[in-house]
């Protein structure tokens, strides 16, 4: 069967966050207790109970104000770091390109959480297992689009055959370039091909996306375990730090960005 993908066109996103709420509603996720975040962004990060959210970025380019919005969620990578580092075998890839977690097998070790180059996985306090976007697979199986795509009022989120999504994204990029927008597709080849394709109207780093994301591998993880065993310490932090650094985009907009993620 053909692979599926979601296309997120940031140039059409109005940041209404209907997708955030629709995701929680369809998946029955509890609300997170949040506080004033200093921006429109909330909850402050993706987690086991928040599978998608919109990032808000304020930017000024030679006096011209920009207010950018990007919906973030699991990218359903072909080279899925989460799957590579999962010792419990709880993570599988479907033949349609989706990365799915098996709650029953997950032991809550958080390896996947730290290995994800997009920081799109979290541990649910409710279930004690890692959870993330599942592309609403029961909806897809029944011929519907994911809840976030359904809720999107402007058509910024579309879903379907990956080939079609790519064609659509490329056409849109070409249209935007025709209007002088510095547009590009993100996700075509990154990590073997993502199943969330972005139409970006600027460089990925501005939107908090790594320009060249790299996958974590099981081999690397084993090396770390040996090293840790050698010193007799079960320490998580160094591993977490390394992958965090690997996943982190160089922040080109530093100094001008008001980012509730901080």
């Amino acid at each position, binding site marked *: 069967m053909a692979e599926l993908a979601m296309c997120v066109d940031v140039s059409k996103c109005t940041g209404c*966050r209907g997708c955030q709420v629709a995701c929680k509603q369809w998946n029955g996720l509890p609300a997170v207790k949040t506080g004033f975040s*200093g921006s429109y962004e909330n909850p402050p990060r993706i987690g086991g109970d928040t599978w998608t959210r919109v990032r808000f970025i304020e930017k000024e380019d030679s006096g011209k104000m920009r207010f950018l919005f990007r919906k973030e969620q699991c990218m359903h990578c072909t080279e899925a770091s989460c799957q590579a580092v999962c010792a419990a075998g709880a993570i599988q890839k479907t033949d349609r390109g989706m990365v799915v977690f098996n709650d029953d097998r997950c032991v809550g070790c958080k390896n996947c959480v730290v290995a994800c180059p997009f920081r799109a996985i979290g541990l649910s306090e409710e279930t004690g297992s890692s959870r993330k976007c599942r592309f609403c697979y029961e909806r897809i199986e029944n011929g519907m689009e994911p809840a976030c795509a359904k809720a999107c*009022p402007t058509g910024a989120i579309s879903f379907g055959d990956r080939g079609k999504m790519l064609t659509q994204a490329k056409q849109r990029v070409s249209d935007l370039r025709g209007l002088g927008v510095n547009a590009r597709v993100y996700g075509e080849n990154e990590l073997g091909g993502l199943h969330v394709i972005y139409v970006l109207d600027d460089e990925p780093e501005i939107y908090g996306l790594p320009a060249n994301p790299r996958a974590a591998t099981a081999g690397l993880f084993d090396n770390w375990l040996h090293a840790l065993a050698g010193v007799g310490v079960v320490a998580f932090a160094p591993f977490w730090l390394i992958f965090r650094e690997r996943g982190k985009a160089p922040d080109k907009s530093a100094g001008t960005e008001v980012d509730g993620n901080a």
Partner: protein
Amino acid sequence: MTNHYIDLKNTDCALIIGSNAAENHPMSFKWLTKAREERGARIISVDPRFTRTSAKADIYAPIRSGTDIAFIGGMINYILRNRMFNEAYVRKYTNAAFIIDDRYDFKDGIFSGYDSKSRKYSSDTWKYKTDSAGQPLKDETLQHPRTVFQLLKKHYSRYDIDTVCRITGTPKGVYMEIADTYAATGARGKAGTILYAMGATQHTVGSQNIRSYAMLQLLLGNIGVPGGGINALRGEANVQGSTDMALLFHLIPGYLNLPSAAPQYATLASYLETETPKTGYWSNKPKFMVSLLKAFWGPNATKDNEFAYQYLPKIDPQVNYSHISVFEALYEEKIKGMFCFGQNPVVGGPNANKEAKALGNLEWLVCVDLWETETSTFWTEKAGARPADIKTEVFLLPAASSVEKEGTVSNSGRWIQWRWKAIEPVNDAKSDGWIINSLFKRVKKLYENESSPAAAPIKHLLWDYGDSDEPDIDKVAREINGYNVFTGKQVPGFAKLSDDGSTCSGNWVFCGMYPEAGKNLSQRRDNTDEGGLGNCLNWSYSWPANRRILYNRCSADYEGRPWSDDSKLIWWDPAKGDILKGEKGKWVGLDVPDFNAVLAPAEPGGTNPFIMLPETVGGLFTTKMKEGPFPEHYEPWESPVNNSLSGVQLNPVVKVPKTAMNEQGSPDRFPIIGTTYRVSEHWQAGQMTRNLPWLAELFPDMFVEMSESLAKARGIKNGDKVVISCARGEITTYALVTKRFKPLLINGKQVEEVGLPWHFGYQGIATGEIANKLTPHIGDGNTMIPEYKAFLVDVRRAV
């Protein structure tokens, strides 16, 4: 909206002013995004703050709150000076060619006919010059110095770009870009739409703000065409419906004026004489009025008793019954009891401290809501009150939500859409219909044995919506449409209503929605879009007469041909007339003609598209507005600067509040402009969203948005707690320091503006201080809509 939501996809340019459409009407951006993608439409956002709408706009311009007339007046001047208006349209479809009375004048901010003592105008001099037969004199060359066109030109010649930018704070470069971009929609076959909301209406000059938009649209030929129009994005899902059904203090259903106790309304005959114009479609008003009275009082409304006209309550002509006035009367202990249906004035009302205090003067208060609100708990310690001091007895009736009841909702585009009940109401919650029906049946019973004149209207009211407590909503719908009272047959449309008492209709504009038994057109769900404009004529029902775009005769030229192939809406087809009936042709096309369907363009009146106005052409000049024929810029009640355009600071006809708890702030003490607004994530006074965890997590707290420069000057950091003070009180909240607010240069002086979402209160999950504690009790000159959008504050760090 003269047009409708889907029609936004047909626009070439959208001017969004006084509206944050992307945040507060997200669906509008479905269609605007389409217009952009498929037609290369341009989107302009004019707002004091860079919003999520601005983020999606091609051009953004900052504007100081309360200066829309200066902004639009400058555009009118620019368009007239550079002859960028749609000349063919203006010449015939507006009153530009009409000649005005010699006595009409305008000097230093004041039109002729002003009485400074009463703060009122007499409109005696705002008249057309007429010939001996009473017909208006015209000069279609538009050259005569007393034509509307020349007077308009003269009036706005003072609104040169430099002056305008000094008033609005808009940088000149971007102002010129907007003027040029929007004026381009004046070209033949091009369309521009204006989207506005409460950012435009909630001002002391709110009505004139909207009128200035409408005039700009007339000049550019943008009314009555696909992708054009003057489009109010209404503040709630059913505000349009509630307005149509007269949830306004001066109207009865169908935009008929409520009679007052003045002599001209003493009898039905004198009411109709006073209210019915001789020309235009409103000349049918007696049919609508009598049919309404028949709907109210049924068999008890007869020709002999003036169709029960005397049963209608008459308002006191000296008293204003608007929201502010009601709360002032409450404060002065003039009102004993109050029903609050889905309203939360302690959060949503202006001058909320005063309104909360005023509630304590009630003997009883009934709140009907989904949750406990700040209004139903105004007497608690949580509200800062001392319960022992408050004698008001408060009842809270749990209301069914919109998915727990059946009925109609009319959207901003005038589409009346039936909604079916999805689930039963939770616990004891009841529909509004249930509550009103049960209440009125009980009231009626109480008056059963009364014989006083006051009892008659209640005893005789026709109230036959079934025996159960839940009213038969289908029967209500049938009555709103109207039926023949002898045969019981539904009236097929308002043209068939009669003033002889043979028909009833609860609202003439809805007549046609339920044209025959079993055919409730508001239930239609066929989205076939013939012609591709999105008019979808078989989807629900659009009043009047299922028209999707009002004044659509304007979409065709004098001869009845579409202005361009790209903008086809309706046109005259000489082949379509019924020869046997002597018809020379027919108006046909992609919408229901808003015109006599068989009146040929060449016949008298054949080029007069505005059939609801007595002069049947668009009113660039009007006698209907209390401040004068042309919108003029005045400063808000609390303003940091003096009026640059005249010596008149404040709208000369507004009622200046001189009541307690409503102090006016001065710019020396309160130098910063305050404004209020909404966010996508919360709804109105918040009772429906602050109680929902998924929405509460998105915006869990109240905040104030301010510029980096203001924050720096006051030593405030993003996330600090700050105090916002005004002459009427202060609130403490979080600072959201943002690049999206910038100081404006007003008359050479740097002026800061801060913005507060007004959703918050102390009830529910997401809580915060009430922004409306800062807004004043002063209303618009025509409507008394409160000034929520421009007031003076100061900001300091909370200790």
